């Protein structure tokens, strides 16, 4: 078995058993990136020297007898996480030359755990997109079919893990940006409860929704890496001060008697027939393991896309005001006056989708419109969250499609923002409510991967990982990798 076919957990165990060194492992993945990323474009920046330096440091720690769970494993970071001394572009021309002057908490924690960073992955500009086509650095291609999108916004992380160019990667999920690309690329991904992973140094898009998380081959790997990232951080004002459980401790627990809620609104018109068939088969597997399927209702689900397209743009218009051409980032040449400096720096630095969202947000927050848009959206957000609270009085986990269809073609939706927005219809409500969600590969429809979404109650990540892991013990969809890489 080649090194890149192994899971993160297997690689970490192999390092501890000294079957290979981190330097060897890191070189293996760097070679794979060099060989295949010309096709995929999943990385914006590869950092080979830095990676090898980190690998040698990890090898020294292992040789000295250290046995950390992540010591010496290589991963990739979404290029939204600030990395001290390394360009952090956020997929934008605005930050093309931005070398972060500090590390994000996520990066700092994983560095301390001895994780090796291979590089920074491609993404939709400022995480605004569902296809990775809004990146200043060009689209990422889906390794299952390079004419198709990998999903977004964390499309680079998803494609890199799917093609086994990295054993795992970080991502962020504001409206589905981990779960949707993980599903379209046939891998596992988790977005934890809002506040579980620090947002410090994670370039802000919509602060009341943004949450960092993980891409990996398996649920076990998701738990392993999440365990190294999660936890309270005083530098993030919305970080939750609550102990992080050992996500792997109960991962093997029996799920007999588990109550799975199936929201009827998610298994309705608009769901691709092939995707639905695949998901029904996966649910049968759960039944055969002793779980009970219960139909439930999340009646306000239909409002999640409209609500999101007020809340997210409003918050992004405020957050992105810091890109002003003065302190960092792109600055227009020869500004006439201060207004000209702001307007041209931002006009030149931002792409069309970012401009659209800033303008929608600015409009929604402008004098006289606040109550009709932002306040109304926050009220509906409460109703959407209450739907989940009621559901979790009845069931242990919720299962639903991650996406209404499989990966679409490059260019298919890029000229039609609203149709692009609707491709996130199954993931957005989870962010609005703030509950954790994950996706696991559940099979294929027309040769393309299908993701099963698992939604849990607040801070119930360990249960999601357990439920996902049990499925992966009896199926092998997560082991299938695209041909040609």
């Amino acid at each position: 078995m080649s090194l890149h076919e192994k899971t993160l957990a297997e690689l970490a165990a192999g390092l501890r058993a000294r079957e290979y060194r981190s330097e060897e492992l890191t070189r293996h993945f760097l070679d794979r990136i060099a060989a295949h990323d010309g096709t995929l474009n999943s990385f914006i920046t590869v950092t080979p020297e830095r990676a090898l330096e980190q690998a040698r440091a990890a090898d020294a720690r292992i040789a000295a007898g250290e046995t950390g769970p992540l010591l010496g494993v290589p991963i990739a970071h979404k290029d939204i996480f600030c990395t001290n001394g390394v360009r952090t572009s956020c997929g934008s021309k605005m930050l093309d030359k931005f070398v972060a002057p500090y590390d994000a908490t996520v990066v700092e924690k994983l560095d301390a755990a001895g994780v090796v960073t291979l590089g920074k992955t491609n993404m939709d500009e400022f995480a605004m997109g569902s296809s990775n086509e809004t990146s200043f650095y060009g689209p990422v291609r889906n390794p299952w079919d390079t004419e198709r999108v990998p999903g977004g916004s964390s499309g680079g992380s998803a494609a890199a893990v799917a093609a086994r160019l990295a054993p795992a990667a970080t991502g962020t999920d504001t409206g589905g940006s981990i779960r949707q690309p993980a599903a379209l690329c046939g891998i596992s991904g988790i977005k934890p409860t809002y506040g579980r992973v620090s947002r410090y140094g994670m370039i802000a898009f919509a602060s009341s929704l943004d949450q960092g998380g993980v891409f990996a081959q398996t649920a076990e790997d998701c738990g392993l890496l999440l365990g190294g990232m999660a936890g309270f951080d005083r530098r993030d004002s919305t970080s939750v001060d609550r102990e992080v459980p050992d996500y792997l401790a109960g991962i093997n627990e029996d799920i007999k008697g588990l109550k799975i809620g199936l929201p009827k609104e998610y298994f309705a018109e608009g769901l691709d027939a092939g995707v639905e068939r695949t998901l029904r088969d996966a649910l049968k597997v759960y039944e055969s393991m002793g779980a009970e399927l219960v139909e439930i209702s999340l009646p306000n689900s239909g409002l999640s896309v409209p609500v999101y397209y007020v809340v997210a743009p409003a918050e992004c218009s405020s957050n992105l005001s810091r890109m002003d051409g003065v302190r960092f980032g792109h600055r227009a040449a020869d500004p006439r006056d201060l207004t000209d400096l702001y307007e041209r720096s931002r006009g030149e630095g931002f792409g069309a989708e970012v401009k659209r969202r800033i303008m929608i947000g600015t409009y929604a927050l402008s004098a006289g419109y606040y109550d009709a848009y932002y306040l109304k959206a926050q009220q509906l957000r409460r109703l959407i969250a209450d739907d989940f609270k009621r559901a979790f009085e009845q069931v242990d986990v919720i299962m639903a499609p991650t996406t209404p269809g499989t990966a679409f073609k490059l260019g298919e939706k890029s000229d039609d923002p609203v149709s692009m927005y609707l491709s996130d219809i199954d993931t957005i409500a989870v962010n609005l409510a703030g509950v954790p969600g994950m996706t696991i590969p559940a099979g294929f429809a027309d040769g393309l991967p299908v993701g099963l979404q698992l939604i849990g109650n607040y801070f119930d990540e360990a249960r999601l990982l357990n439920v996902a892991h049990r499925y992966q013990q009896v199926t092998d969809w997560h082991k299938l990798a695209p041909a040609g890489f």
Partner: protein
Amino acid sequence: MSLDANDVNKIAHLARLRIEEADVPGYAAQLSEILDLVEQMNAVDTRDVPPMAHPLDAVQRLRPDVVSETDQRDHFQTIAPQTEAGLYLVPKVIE
């Protein structure tokens, strides 16, 4: 909801965003479509529903008012487009 070219120019100015003249009609059409999608919110009566600003209804944490950060001005200014003597330079704002 329909926005015209004037609206787009006004919003773009509020957002300090230069939009090329030729792109204004396209933005007007797309922003109008997005606002049509958003209008679906009006189908639900939300009187007496308390707005939700934070998923866990958390409030802002407080800390003692003591210095917690060190001065890193020089370090942070190395990535600034234009500085001089520790100051960020912008075009003249006062005649």
